[in-house]
């Protein structure tokens, strides 16, 4: 069957429910899915944040220090570390007045990938190219 492309579309803020976080962790799990697939089969997700889903993604989060739990920032970094394509809607960041420079990177962890801040048209393209689109 080869590669199956997926688009994970996060529309809800990370702080408003569990499912936005689960979108990230489910996308990250593409790293280990091959143990359950036939040789040559792969899953390639793109993790996209649109609408209110762009809220709460900023860097410098202190969830571990204050609440003893991992932060959204740490999940974003882990996504980059496993070479996941992370797309954030440029227009929606602007809509909420969030600076693009506030988005975290994972350079300190040695990740090559960076968060991609893209026009919605790019996210639309990711959805069109995907076999399945999953909304969170």
């Amino acid at each position, binding site marked *: 069957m080869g590669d199956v492309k997926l688009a994970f579309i996060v529309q809800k803020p990370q702080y408003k*429910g569990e*499912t936005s976080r*689960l979108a990230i962790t489910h996308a990250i799990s593409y790293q280990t899915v091959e*143990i359950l697939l036939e040789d040559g089969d792969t*899953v390639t997700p793109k993790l996209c944040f649109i609408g209110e889903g762009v809220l709460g993604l900023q860097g410098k989060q202190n969830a571990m220090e204050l609440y003893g739990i991992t932060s959204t920032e740490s999940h974003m970094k882990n996504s980059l570390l496993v070479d996941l394509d992370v797309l954030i809607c440029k227009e929606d960041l602007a809509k909420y007045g969030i600076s693009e420079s506030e988005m975290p990177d994972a350079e300190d962890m040695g990740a090559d990938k960076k968060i991609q801040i893209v026009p919605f048209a790019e996210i639309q393209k990711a959805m069109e190219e995907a076999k*399945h689109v999953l*909304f969170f």
Partner: protein
Amino acid sequence: MGMLTIGCFPGLVGNMTYDFALKLADAAVTKGHKVNIWFSGNATGSIKAHQKHLKDYSTGEKHLKALIEKGVEICTCEACTVARGIMKTEGIEGVQWNAMHWYLAKIHASDRVLQIGGE
């Protein structure tokens, strides 16, 4: 016939979304389709055995057992489940326990996927 995978994230009690997911699964498997259900988030609370079916509340156990009997593969996210204090020994027999890659593997083989979001 095709393969349908349903990602079910809402809690059992407090909405009808969970009930809808199970009804849909039943309709699909009855038509002859292969059906997989992945529970994550609050939906994982529904795999605990010995649920008392009070008529004011939705119930999972009876329907899950019936779906398993019909050949539906049902799997719960182990991390989400144990985080809610439910251990494997307390789960409904026949429900599989695995990690999130189970869901992605089923998606890989599926003709259609329905991601049913939760709280």
